[in-house]
């Protein structure tokens, strides 16, 4: 077993409509193949980042800050995938 790794990064929701169902689904799907634990926090609410409904509960609108914490051996790779999504603005305007 490799040592557990924790990676943390804060993102700003880049797309106009915020983290609604479609982008949240992309987020969950991107993480499906990773084994690390995913926590996403907005202000003082923290949810499981592998849960679509959890992410929706954050009601993360355009411009809001999300702190993403990944724990596990494959956390760095998973973070790369998440970064891609935010850079691509979840393929939205």
């Amino acid at each position, binding site marked *: 077993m490799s040592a557990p790794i924790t990676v943390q990064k804060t993102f700003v929701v880049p797309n*106009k*409509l*915020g983290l*609604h*169902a*479609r982008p949240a*689904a992309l987020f*969950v*799907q991107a993480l499906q193949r990773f084994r690390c634990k995913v926590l996403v926090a907005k202000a003082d609410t923290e949810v*499981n980042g*592998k*849960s*679509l*409904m*959890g992410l*929706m*509960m954050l*009601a993360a*609108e*355009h411009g809001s800050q999300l702190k993403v914490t990944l724990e596990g051996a494959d956390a760095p790779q998973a973070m790369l995938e998440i970064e*891609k999504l935010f*850079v*691509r603005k979840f*393929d939205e*305007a």
Partner: protein
Amino acid sequence: MIVIKGVPASPGIAMGKAYVLEDEEIVVNRVEIGKDKVRAEVKRFKQALEATYRDLDAAEAKVLKTLGKQHAKLIDTHRLILSDPLITKDVPRRILNEAVNAEFALSEALDHVNEAFEKIEDEFFRERRHDLFDVGKRLLSHLLKQEKRSLTDIETACILIARNLLPSDTVNLKDSKILGFATDLGGKTSHTAILAQGMQIPAVVGLSDASHRVKNGDFVILDGEHGMLIISPSPEAIAKYQKAQLKTQQEEKALDALRGQTAATLDGHRFDLCANLDTPDEIKTIVGLKTDGIGLFRTEYLFLNRLEAPTEEEQFRAYSQAVKAMNGLPTVIRTADIGGDRLAQLGIDGPKNETNPFMGLRGIRLFLRHSDLLKTQLRAILRSTQHGKVRVLLPMISSMAELRSARRIFFAAQQELLAEGVDTAKKVELGIMVEIPAAGLMLDHLLTEADFISIGTNDLIQYILAVDRINEHVAHLYDPFHPAVVRTLYSIVETAKKKGKRVTVCGEMTSDPKAAPLLVGMGVDVLSVTPRMFLRVKQIVMSLRFEHASKIVQRALSMSDSDEIQRLLTDI
């Protein structure tokens, strides 16, 4: 007469008998089960999950057929909800920890999520909990081995009134005789609203307790314009709404009558009115509108949400479908205007994290860098010319060098196809988008090598004014009637006319009723409009006098202020 005020969700007026859908109350009791039975209970829950997955597969096929891709995506969301740890992990945990039945564990888990959602202020997000309930109810009905209600049995024309409509309720509604929807719950972005808009029938949502106050068979009026439900209306109210209904019908009839009429001003100035095509499902609509062609086929969709670039064959099929459907009328196909960030997804090396993608590697810049992508697309477009009239359009041209490089690849593709013995049209026009101010400023030179131009107003305006339309801090500065924009458009059109080349205007500005006299008055040859606005724009331009519109253009050119120009255009 009772009037209940709600939220307008889809426009229109409907009158008729109410069909009240009884709210499906599933009563779930807490049953303690023995510690030795919890494993079996978890297994029963997993079986219900499997059965629900199968439901979704079946529903997906049906939705695809009746409502189209947009709605089928909803099923994908439901699959994700079904595999959400809040259901797959939380429910078994509750069964194991509390030694309770699966139904109770599930309803507790759902209640827990619901509580969190109810606190959300943003309606758009709060509404999404209904998707969860829908999936939850399906699951519960499998656990309880109950049949889920279906609305297929509605045979007569009626107004459907319900506490809430869930996507699974409405799968079969597309071909029903329902005149309108009224629901107690829901907001502007709810499933009911989207469905009603798609079916083009009125809907009012957020009517609080309407479903309890209306009885089956009551006569009701549904006013989708003002968001009202009127139960047992007075004769006066009925008369008033009948009049309004008649007026709307007449307006629609007037628009309808424009289909197929030659687009011309009152004083006989001719021009072509075409439609923009963004996705293939719009082809049928465009054919129905009897346009003068497809003025702009945006091919970006072919490159989105996928892991590799579309093949020549795939593109050829997509273009051929549109070209054949136009039956001899022109189709202007633009090579893809995608950004560098898309490349990584397609498995090609490209720039990441461009700080300003609008000024970055996109459109023709990207395709000249990866000329294989450009050549593949040009070959596919050229091959589609065997099915009809096709013109090719290059996006984001800003210099002679770019135009020449692209032309070289275009001719090389033509030569290749010739050598391969592929049947293509002999002469295919190659035009450029004028959307970068530089192209407008040196258009006389570009037109020595370009066969026609298409003005992309969205980008042109944003580059002239240095305004990013999706940046909320400056979006208000985006202004199609800014004197600098009006002058630039005028000079572009004049230059093209002098060179004897055709000018198309595409972009959102064409759909703005105020802009029509300006564009027509400048003498634009083709307007290409989004299908939804096509007939409205046609009605406006056909009510203009070209002579008058040209004078208005001259007056607008002398004005120093956008408000002044807009006043001039509104006063027509």
